[in-house]
């Protein structure tokens, strides 16, 4: 075989260029020479020239001026020129180029050439870059070649037909009759081509399925022959006879057996045989087993066979070969919903794969583990998932945290466990928690009222060691703002006591406000928390006031607005400050427990610790309403210093009348009433926040009620 010297010389020169610029210079010179020689139509070196151009093209340089040369070379009678011409066509021409149409005629001629190697070139090129037009034109030729001719051409014609069917599915009916008869050929190349063609015909046109289901017995025979045959040197790969053909036959059987009992029955025994007898110590055998498992799970197989298939996947999980472990998990993922119990049996191994070195395997293991979490295994699974989270690769972390939160929310065995899990995730991976989950987490924490003290202590401790994780910062700030009083009291049953002063808390919140690591959202949370603390602390109101006023001129517009509003609360509306900043406050992102008042005219809106508050509404006019609160006391001793305060939306005007008194007699012997006049000129949706304050048995009590709707038809 004579090497193309000129080509290799050029390659050598290009490779010896020391810089990109030098290489470009060489390429330019060579291309100029090639162009000149194309124009000359010199007989000897034409194929070398085109080959040189193709090399230049592969380096990434433009080579479109060679397109016409390809067309000319393909039309040449010389094999060497045709060969490189067709290669050029496959590399430089595609269906989008006009020049590609010009070779259609050459291809047509070459398809009937006396030399099978020239026929082969034409077939290969058509299958590689044939446009729809070319395919339509040449389809009858291909069909003819499928029937006549030798195996060498038949197998190529079959794959060419596949390409044609992909381009123009309707032409499939041209090939359907011949495709079936190809299955009786003994040549493996032809068989393989036939199976691929039938697969394509069935996928493109489900109408063909009935016709080709008749071939199932034949296909089963072919497989049996491959599986039980002795050693065949020509087709043997690591002890498996022609794994390429076996896999394609199995894939076709899958398509034919899907949703069809009869076909599935006919292949049942074969699949069991292949599943049991195939040696999976090397990749070839594993490839066949893998395809077998996919087929078993997709057709209507007996339950025994399905169990066998899942067990094969389970075995794959323990294989030393990482690829096989990965494949096993992708397959298990596909069937985890339909065959949940079977997959659960392998949960232990799957969880072990979380520790695999390979990131792809880890990803698959995470997906599967999350799918396998159930009420029965939540505690042990969560341990594993949290352990995984600490060593989790960065690209998987946000997916892992979301998955953990979902699982926790669905199956939490107790509130304390749930809160602990949330805290653990925030502390370990708070930076990767998605922003949208923060409001949800806050909601969950606020609902678990017995754990407020515990939660705020733990979050505070996490915060003082690390303020870089934004989700953690946001949730912690909210909790500190909301439950700051619990934090400052210092004691909590579940954890070691820690003395936290007001200054400590304000220090942390101010640090977050000033830190460049804090996102705008986090700073908003911190500022709000500082503001809320103004109602829960006693010694540092001035400090808070000054922080808030500083941020009134902050560059961040949102923060500035917030600070200005808070400033106003300090100055003009100090009497409202307690109301708005007390428990269960909405400031745009918290959640609130509300009470909706329905049709009854006199309804209880609050009942706690023996104190009962009723509400009655009377409309004077469409825009004026009188609200009367009646408070009663069922405890053993009198309630003293009872006061009510109310806040309403901005457009509504409020006038508090003098209360009837501030002592509620014990044991329901008397009441206190308070009337409030409301003027709602804009007929806005009426809401009211009421704050109660009283002393009962020597203890000062404060609480808040939100009333969202009033029993008045005028406002509905």
């Amino acid at each position, binding site marked *: 075989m004579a090497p193309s010297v000129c080509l290799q010389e050029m390659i050598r020169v290009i490779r010896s260029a020391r810089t990109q610029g030098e290489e470009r210079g060489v390429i330019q010179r060579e291309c100029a020479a090639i162009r000149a020689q194309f124009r000359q139509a010199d007989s000897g070196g034409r194929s070398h020239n085109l080959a040189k151009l193709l090399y230049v093209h592969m380096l990434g340089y433009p080579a479109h001026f060679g397109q016409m040369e390809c067309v000319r070379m393909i039309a040449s009678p010389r094999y060497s020129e045709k060969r490189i011409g067709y290669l050029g066509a496959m590399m430089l021409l595609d269906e989008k180029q006009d020049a590609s149409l010009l070779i259609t005629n050459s291809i047509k001629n070459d398809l009937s050439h006396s030399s099978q190697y020239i026929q082969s070139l034409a077939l290969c090129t058509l299958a590689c870059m044939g446009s729809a037009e070319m395919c339509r034109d040449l389809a009858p030729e291909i069909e003819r070649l499928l029937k006549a001719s030798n195996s060498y051409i038949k197998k190529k014609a079959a794959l060419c037909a596949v390409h044609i069917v992909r381009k123009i599915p309707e032409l499939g009916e041209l090939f359907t009759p011949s495709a079936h008869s190809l299955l009786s050929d003994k040549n493996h*190349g032809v068989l*393989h081509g036939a199976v691929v063609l039938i697969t394509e015909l069935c996928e493109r046109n489900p109408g063909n399925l009935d016709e080709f289901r008749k071939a199932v017995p034949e296909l089963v025979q072919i497989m049996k022959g491959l599986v039980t045959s002795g050693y065949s040197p020509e087709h043997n790969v690591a002890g498996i006879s022609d794994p390429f053909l076996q896999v394609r036959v199995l894939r076709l059987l899958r398509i034919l057996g899907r949703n069809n009992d009869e076909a599935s029955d006919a292949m049942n025994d074969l699949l069991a045989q292949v599943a049991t007898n195939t040696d999976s110590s090397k990749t070839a055998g594993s490839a066949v087993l893998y*395809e077998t498992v996919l087929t078993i799970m997709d057709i209507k197989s007996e339950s025994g066979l399905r169990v066998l298939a899942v067990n094969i996947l389970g075995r794959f999980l323990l294989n030393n070969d*990482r690829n096989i472990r990965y*494949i096993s998990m992708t397959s298990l993922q596909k069937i985890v919903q339909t065959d949940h119990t079977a997959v659960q049996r392998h949960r232990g191994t799957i969880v072990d794969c979380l520790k695999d*070195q390979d990131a792809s395997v880890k990803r698959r293991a995470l997906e599967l583990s999350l799918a396998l979490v159930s009420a029965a295994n939540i505690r042990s699974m969560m341990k594993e998932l949290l352990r995984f989270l600490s060593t989790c690769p960065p690209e998987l972390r946000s997916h892992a945290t979301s998955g953990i939160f979902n699982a926790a929310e669905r199956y939490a065995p107790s509130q304390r466990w749930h809160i602990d899990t949330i805290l653990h995730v925030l502390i370990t991976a708070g930076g990767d928690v998605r922003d949208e989950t923060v409001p949800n987490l806050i909601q969950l924490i606020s609902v678990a009222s017995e754990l407020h003290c515990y939660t705020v202590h733990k979050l505070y401790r996490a915060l003082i060691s690390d303020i870089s994780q934004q989700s953690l910062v946001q949730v912690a700030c909210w909790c500190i703002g909301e439950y700051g009083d619990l934090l400052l009291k210092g004691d909590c049953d579940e954890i070691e006591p820690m003395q936290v002063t007001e200054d400590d808390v304000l220090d942390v919140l101010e640090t977050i406000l000033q830190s460049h690591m804090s996102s705008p959202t986090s700073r908003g949370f911190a500022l709000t928390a500082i503001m809320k603390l103004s109602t829960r602390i006693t010694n540092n109101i001035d400090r808070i006031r000054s922080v808030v006023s500083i941020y009134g001129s902050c560059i961040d517009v949102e923060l500035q607005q917030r600070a200005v509003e808070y400033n106003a609360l300090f100055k003009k509306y100090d009497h409202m400050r307690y109301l708005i900043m007390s428990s269960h406050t909405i400031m745009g992102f918290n959640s609130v427990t509300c009470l909706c008042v329905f049709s009854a005219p006199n309804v209880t809106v609050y009942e706690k610790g023996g104190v009962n508050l009723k509400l009655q509404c009377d409309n004077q006019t469409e825009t004026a309403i009188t609200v009367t609160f009646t408070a009663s006391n069922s405890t053993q001793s009198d309630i003293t210093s009872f006061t009510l305060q109310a806040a309403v939306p901005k457009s509504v005007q409020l006038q508090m009348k003098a209360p009837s008194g501030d002592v509620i007699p014990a044991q329901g012997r008397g009441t206190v009433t308070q009337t409030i006049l409301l003027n709602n000129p804009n007929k806005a949706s009426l809401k009211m926040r009421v704050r109660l304050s009283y002393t009962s048995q020597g203890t000062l009590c404060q609480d808040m009620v939100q009333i969202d709707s009033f029993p008045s038809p005028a406002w509905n």
Partner: protein
Amino acid sequence: MMRFLLLFSRQGKIRLQKWFLPLGEREKKKIIRDMTTMVLARKPRTCNFLHWKDLKIVYKRYASLYFCCGLEEEDNELLALEVLHRYVELLDKYFGNVCELDIIFNFEKAYFILDEFLMGGEVQETSKQSIAKSIEASDMLQETMEEYMSKPAF
């Protein structure tokens, strides 16, 4: 079907590119960039499969060359490893202990061999001997013609 087959060096230089689907030049360049970046970033002892857009990517390193192919959802990845391996065996048989330089200096032969093994993104022939015989016969045909052409007229 296989959508593409790429061979590239450890420095990301492409040594062979076979596209089984029509794509624009820009798209091809982008795919090559993405494949080389992704595959070269893989640590040793990780599995040979990746996900990229809607394709399964299978790659294997042989000496200084990476063999990388893009598969569709239904294709068998483990079999693809066997396909890549078979191609390497064919090259090895042809060139005798093949190395990257062989493929650089005889790239057109690498394509010819590939075109006897795969067609339209599918395996064309499953017998190594059969492919080797066809290549031999084609080369003979080429030589004979060249000999004939370089002979003087009389």
